[in-house]
């Protein structure tokens, strides 16, 4: 141990990404780039019916092609153990639950041969009638046991109906959001290799530990005999959080042919097999006195899931904690349709839910003639309205005030539809953001090496967020050494188990384990008088106890989003001129990567407001616009002036870093801020996203 003088702390500084050079020089390896010897290619075949059964598969033409090694379907697929998530039971039944579901897979020596063979494979079906249309009055609507991850479906306080009947001002509106699909730059990909001691998966995932623990039992293996390698991931946004059918199909195909198999999900397949944000229909009722003090909030959400898996988005959960009101009811109703299973998409629940709630708040501000920021200030709760717990910290108002100052809100004339600038109607809008603070148990090891450097190991995932960099900073500070002496190894299930990159809890969960391991290492070294033996010193930490025994607080991050839009009065074309986000998210570990997370989320929110919509084709039962020429995500030209800042927040009730998650809050509220600005610009309230020309042109 050479250095014992404490360097300046790294947490809080804008350290460049530690793997940045590796990435921009093409050295960083992604799942699809692994090429073990003897590798062959798998191309899946998707159902082209929405409901029914596979009667037979005719592979005659396909197997005659050169290079074709196997065609696998229910009739000849290796059997795997049943899974709780039926999406994983790929090729295990004749049933087709949705159009686009995998019904077969072809393996060939080259990708080209496999693609052609897959095209020639003939699948015959017994077709049944399908139902793919989400309606609030669908007779199949039911109350799920719980909504994700484990919240009650419904809550009620006071007497909402009576309070509504007696309220001076009532807003009662229905909002809708369409299905939306994650489109990370890197599609889902797996290279599956079976060996003497089990299965190795090079996989594009948000959690190597989770993939291992999910896949191993399917193939009857102990988790120790599955290894998942995933050092670099090109985005996920939730779609790579829960392991789904592609990784299982790759492993199954590799097992069947006895050779390493590479499988990538095409962009078009992504619109069927990797989940999406459920469409929602939301009715929001607000009752207030003439000064805008909320007496009652009722928020009812209607959403969908597939026949084979219940995925119940937690759409109205933010309404349970955002504002004070003595009477409150929140509900979720779900209908099971012949559609693909929804899954996680950045800030699931909060994103659609806060769009509706924050739009309704804006409508209430208009109805009461009160500034929308002032309205939110008036309805600040002193404690969590649902549980009564104190907030560990809550700086929504500070975010609103700081944003108002930076955005020039004071000069705003609230009258809608009156500002013409260069022939365009201009307006501004505001909305609140929030996201819960979660933390999950993780393990980590910290090793001191004889050369004076340190290695920290944890099966965390860096999906482009900067997690590896943040953990390097956290470890360096905990060890009291410069970041240059610390090497963080992540993205491999052979490393100590970690929770996944999701729920904005990566830094909090992994960081806690890293800090505890580094503290233990510092202690171990102190006991040795700072001497590191030739083969190093390694210690480990497990945060299961610490995370389980937290103090009782309501923990949430907050933010305020401001938007300025210009709307062409003739065409209804809406463009966002300015976006400002102000966030209160605890201690910011790295301002550079944090800013990217915030503005990335806000850009996705802008995209949701104006562009994104997966169009369900009622006749055929699939999402029709399944490529990036048809499913529009914001282009650079759509994002003109975007800024994210944060207020200082010192919250001692979180974790050793004092950090709240920042990966998702950036998207929450953006769409409402934009929609509210569109109302201010035009006087037209659009309650169905996305806000495209057809909603505004007259």
């Amino acid at each position, binding site marked *: 141990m050479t250095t014992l003088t404490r360097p300046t702390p790294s947490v809080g500084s804008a350290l460049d990404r530690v793997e940045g050079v590796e990435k921009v020089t093409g050295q960083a390896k992604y799942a699809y780039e692994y090429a073990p010897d003897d590798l062959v290619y798998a191309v899946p075949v998707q159902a082209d019916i929405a409901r029914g059964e596979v009667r037979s598969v005719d592979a005659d033409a396909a197997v005659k092609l050169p290079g074709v090694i196997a065609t696998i379907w229910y009739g000849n697929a290796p059997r795997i153990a049943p899974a709780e998530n039926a999406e994983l039971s790929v090729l295990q039944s004749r049933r087709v639950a949705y159009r686009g579901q995998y019904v077969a897979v072809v393996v060939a020596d080259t990708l*080209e041969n496999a693609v052609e063979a897959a*095209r020639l494979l003939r699948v015959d079906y017994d077709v049944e009638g399908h139902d793919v249309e989400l309606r609030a009055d669908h007779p199949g609507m039911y109350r799920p046991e719980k909504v994700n991850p484990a919240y009650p479906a419904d809550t009620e306080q006071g007497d909402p109906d009576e309070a509504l009947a007696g309220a001076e001002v009532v807003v009662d509106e229905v909002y809708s959001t369409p299905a939306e699909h994650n489109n990370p730059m890197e599609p889902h990909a797996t290279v599956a290799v079976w060996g003497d001691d089990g299965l190795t998966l090079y996989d594009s995932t948000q959690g190597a530990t989770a993939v291992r623990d999910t896949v191993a039992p399917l193939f009857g293996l102990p988790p120790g005999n599955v290894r998942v390698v995933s050092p670099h991931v090109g985005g996920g946004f939730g779609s790579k959080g829960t392991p789904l059918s592609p990784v299982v199909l790759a492993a199954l195909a590799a097992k069947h042919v006895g050779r390493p198999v590479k499988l990538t999900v095409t962009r078009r397949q992504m619109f069927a097999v990797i989940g999406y944000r459920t469409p929602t229909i939301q009715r929001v009722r607000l009752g207030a006195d003439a000064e805008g003090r909320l007496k009652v909030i009722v928020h009812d959400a209607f959403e969908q899931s597939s026949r084979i898996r219940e995925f119940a988005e937690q759409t109205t959960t933010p309404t349970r904690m955002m504002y004070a009101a003595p009477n409150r009811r929140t509900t979720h109703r779900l209908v099971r349709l012949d559609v693909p299973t929804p899954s996680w998409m950045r800030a699931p629940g909060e994103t659609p839910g806060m769009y509706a709630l924050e739009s309704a708040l804006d409508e209430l501000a208009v109805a009461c003639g009160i500034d929308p920021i002032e309205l939110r200030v008036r309805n600040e709760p002193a404690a969590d309205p649902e549980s009564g717990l104190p907030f560990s910290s809550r700086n929504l108002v500070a975010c609103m005030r700081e944003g108002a100052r930076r955005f020039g809100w004071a000069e705003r004339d609230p009258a809608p539809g009156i500002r013409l600038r260069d022939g365009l109607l201009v307006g501004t809008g505001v909305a609140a953001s929030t996201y819960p603070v979660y933390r999950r148990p993780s393990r980590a090891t910290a090793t001191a090496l004889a050369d004076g450097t340190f290695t920290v190991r944890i099966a965390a995932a860096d999906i482009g967020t900067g997690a590896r960099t943040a953990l390097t900073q956290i470890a360096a500070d905990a060890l009291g050494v410069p970041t240059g002496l610390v090497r963080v190894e992540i993205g491999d299930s052979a490393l100590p188990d970690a929770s996944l990159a999701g729920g904005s809890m990566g830094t909090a969960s992994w960081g806690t384990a890293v800090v505890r391991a580094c503290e233990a290492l510092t202690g171990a070294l102190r006991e040795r008088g700072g001497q590191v033996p030739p083969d190093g010193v390694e210690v480990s930490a497990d945060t299961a106890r610490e995370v389980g025994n937290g103090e009782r607080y309501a923990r949430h991050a907050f933010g305020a989003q401001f938007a300025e839009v210009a709307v062409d009065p003739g065409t209804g074309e809406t463009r966002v001129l300015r976006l400002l986000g102000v966030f209160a998210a605890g201690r910011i570990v790295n301002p550079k990567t944090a800013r990217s997370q915030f503005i990335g989320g806000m850009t996705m929110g802008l995209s949701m407001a*104006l562009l994104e919509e997966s169009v369900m084709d009622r006749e*055929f039962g699939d999402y*029709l*616009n399944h490529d990036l020429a048809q499913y*529009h995500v914001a282009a650079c*030209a759509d994002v003109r002036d975007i800024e994210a800042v944060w207020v200082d927040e010192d919250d001692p009730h979180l974790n050793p870093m004092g950090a709240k998650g920042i990966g998702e809050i950036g998207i929450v509220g953006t769409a409402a801020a934009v929609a509210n600005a569109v109302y201010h610009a035009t006087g037209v309230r659009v309650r169905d996203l996305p806000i495209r*020309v057809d909603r505004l042109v007259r």
Partner: protein
Amino acid sequence: MRPFSYLRAQDAPSAVATATGRPETMYLAGGTNLVDLMRLGVAVPDVLVDVSGIASGTVEETGDGTLLVGAGVRNSDLAADPLVRRRQPLLSQAVLAGASGQIRNMATVGGNLMQRTRCPYFQDVTKPCNKRLPGTGCPARTGENRNLAILGHSDSCVATHPSDMAVALAALGAIVHVEGADGPRTVPMPGLHRLPGDEPERDTVLGQGELITAVEVPPLPFAGRSRYRKVRDRASFAFAVVSVAVALDVADGIVRDCRIAFGGVAHAPWRAETAEAVLRGATATETEFARAAEAELAAARPLPGNAFKIPLVRNVLVRTLADLAEAS
């Protein structure tokens, strides 16, 4: 992927000789549309004849002010051409409003004219489509048709032609030079692209094996005052919801002449001759512009999902005419 052979043509006649009588042969230019369609299994040629090397890649001026644009001219070069920018700004604007910088660098004038519809059913081989597989039906009529036609469609097909450039060329009355087995011929625009009728599989009047060699843009003195206005969902890199190409000649408050074409509304670029006739000799006022727009759109037959296109085209045409009139 299906195996295919690839030939590089030496000149137009030999390309035509190779392709004529062999329907499984297709010309390849920039490949930005054809290669995508091959990947999707929509186009399944056995032979690709690469014409990007032969079709002239230059913009030339002939004596009388006519521009002769080679079929191989890249979209980006056409848009940047100084003569085009000065004399026919709407053509340059139309090309620049299309696709992305990278695609325009690859795409050619011939390929742009011959690109296929973006109808989602056409691009999905798991679904029926009369244009792709004649006789299978047109699911777009009752399905998703927000982006499809309001004018000139038929029971068999409601697709739109996606090209921006073609709309400007239709307004300018361009003449397409074609090489066929029987030698060269010319096709005026509009007139290259067909309405679907009961043969939606035919996008254009070109016969099998015919090759576009050049596009002639005749002089139009007042086209210096012209504009291409495209309405799109996304600020860039999106096909037109609708578009208008307008050239206007106004003197003393009276419209002396004008050219108007619409994009995103029909199976072909839509030359608005009715509107043009209403405007010639009319006063250059918004009232008259609206009257002209409505006269043209009286023929519109919207589908369940796209009635909004009627006020949209009307508004954008009126605005564009008014802006051009104001600039005179």
